[in-house]
């Protein structure tokens, strides 16, 4: 049973038979808390996400009732301090939570990534004490939904070219401009928005949904992340009180530090989608028979499965090492770029191969592969495209900037 926003969607009786795959014993590198967190979020996903996700994706509806559940389980800002609505966990725990959510669906993981890494994190990191006290507990408890506005219709990979701007007007700034591809925006109570001031410096601010001149129309027609709601942010002479602007941060490092946090979560999250596809394909290959034997007995199926688990194992080790670096504040943005790029591409390839193993059934919503595959097309592009992350690695190793 769900609330009124969900129309007639009820839980499917089909059981989520997912089992974890840990070929290299990476679990031995994890702590008791990590394993407990994984078990808890996995259980929550099996109970709350898996039975409804195919139908929400099919109908292109956002399961908004899950925001409350995500808050209750502690998926919003798990690595932020408890006193600000977070969970006080380490970065590996945060990654594991994202992995388990994305095992359910990239759209559900996106709901949590945005709330935690792109809304709560910047307010925690750059906000005044008043801003933190006013907004963080409500965001952590799911009472408020937040969104993050950086990308513009004409400025995606090049955010420094943004035209959204603020002008000083005494005790407030006047905000004008538009943002595009904003996860959660049509539902959001607040938006963390980045805009240029009159000196051309990028500033961050918290904009509330009821303020005059602010609207957030929904973007329709997505073939990807269909269970996640996406929209625009439109600002027409919105008065933003000065106390809602982040006091000290200037320039792109503000929004980019949030993106590093979210990209880190995606590097883990993508493993979840890959594991779900692999798990489904492995089981299908053992149950489906052709020519009088299970298709898993054919060499070409084994090749696919063997390559999948190899790539998943590499991605797990990459994510674990990145998490260990992040725990001591040593994960560089370029290292995060490498992991995001590698793991998302890995997951997308696995979704495609897994879909093939399922044969014709693979294109239906009886199995999760095609939904993951379509979702991952977005994940490949958002939070820094596949190509841009490659150039970040290129710049990091050569010292030469390909963007200029």
């Amino acid at each position: 049973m769900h609330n009124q926003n969900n129309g007639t969607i009820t839980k499917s009786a089909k059981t989520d038979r997912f089992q974890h795959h840990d070929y290299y014993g990476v679990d031995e590198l994890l702590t008791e808390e990590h394993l407990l967190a994984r078990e808890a979020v996995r259980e929550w996903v099996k109970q709350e996400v898996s039975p409804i996700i195919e139908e929400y994706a099919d109908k292109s509806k956002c399961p908004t009732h899950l925001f409350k559940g995500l808050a209750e389980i502690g998926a919003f800002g798990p690595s932020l301090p408890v006193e600000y609505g977070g969970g006080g966990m380490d970065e590996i725990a945060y990654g594991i939570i994202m992995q388990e959510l994305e095992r359910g669906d990239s759209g559900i993981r996106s709901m949590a990534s945005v709330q935690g890494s792109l809304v709560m994190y910047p307010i925690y990191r750059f906000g005044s004490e008043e801003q933190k006290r006013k907004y963080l507990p409500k965001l952590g408890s799911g009472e408020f939904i937040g969104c993050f506005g950086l990308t513009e219709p004409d400025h995606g990979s090049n955010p420094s070219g943004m035209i959204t701007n603020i002008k000083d007007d005494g005790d407030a700034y006047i905000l004008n401009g538009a943002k595009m591809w904003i996860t959660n925006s049509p539902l959001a109570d607040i938006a963390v928005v980045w805009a240029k001031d009159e000196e051309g410096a990028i500033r961050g601010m918290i904009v509330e949904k009821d303020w005059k001149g602010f609207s957030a129309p929904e973007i329709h027609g997505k073939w990807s992340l269909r269970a996640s709601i996406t929209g625009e942010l439109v600002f027409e002479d919105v008065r933003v009180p000065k106390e809602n602007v982040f006091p000290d941060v200037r320039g792109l490092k503000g929004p980019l530090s949030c993106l590093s946090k979210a990209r880190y979560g995606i590097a883990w999250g993508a493993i979840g989608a890959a594991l779900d596809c692999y798990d489904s394909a492995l089981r299908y290959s053992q149950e489906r028979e052709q020519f009088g034997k299970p298709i898993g007995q054919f060499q070409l199926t084994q090749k696919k499965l063997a390559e999948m688990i190899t790539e998943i194992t590499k991605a797990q080790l990459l994510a674990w090492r990145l998490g260990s670096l992040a725990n001591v504040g040593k994960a560089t943005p370029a290292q995060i770029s490498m992991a995001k790029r590698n793991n998302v591409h890995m997951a997308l390839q696995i979704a495609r191969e897994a879909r093939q193993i399922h044969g014709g059934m693979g294109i239906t919503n009886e199995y999760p592969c095609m939904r993951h595959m379509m979702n991952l097309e977005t994940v490949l592009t958002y939070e820094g495209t596949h190509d841009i992350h490659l150039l970040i690695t290129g710049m990091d190793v050569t010292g030469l900037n390909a963007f200029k």
Partner: protein
Amino acid sequence: MKFLVCVSKTPETTAKIAFSGDGSQFETSGVNYIMNPYDEWYALVRALELKELHGGSVTIINVGPASNDAVIRKGLAIGADNALRVNAEPNSSLYIAKQIAEHAKTENYDVIFCGKESIDYNGSEVGAMVAELLDLPFISFANHLDLEGNLATVSRDIEGGIEVAEVETPIVVSAAKGMAEQRIPNMRGIMMAKRKPLSVVEPFDFADLSVPVHFQLPPEKGGCVYVDGENMDELVRLLHQEAKVI
């Protein structure tokens, strides 16, 4: 009020069960373990609900080796206040019950909970044994429990109906489905569990009365034989000669 919840660690429900070649031991490699669901979903959660209603504390007890700590920690993450592990490798229900009773006899618990059975050995014995050892009333397979002062109202399914019992605490109760609903621990609970006390005590000396000598898997299920409805002679022949039931 003081509540004690007895928990055991069991293989997860999808684990492939195998025994060593000579049948003397359960093959543990590749098996994932969980807290016995009857202990976790029903016994522990009802104890927590009663604590939330009436105040008091919830203690978890487990008889087992250090590798059981992860399961105990989950109970603390769900909300128990503290835990005790009796450091032993038990071989029988009586051994476990003796250890639990030895701890409980001086602690004045109002209600001692256990699950109605563990999903591995399905013995349903420990609760009854603990009650007997402590000379307390025992209500098995309970699916509802309310407390009013020291009066407990407990109901249990019986053939064709429901039996409702009133009993004065202290009592021992084994919890069945319906007693409560599963609680998934949240991240804050998991972090708090790290700081909750989990004490380990050595077992009190007790010579076990039984030891398992051999395990074996049930025979594989045979296929179905379909007999034409018209062919009664064949049906009778199969029942008589193959199944040997008539």
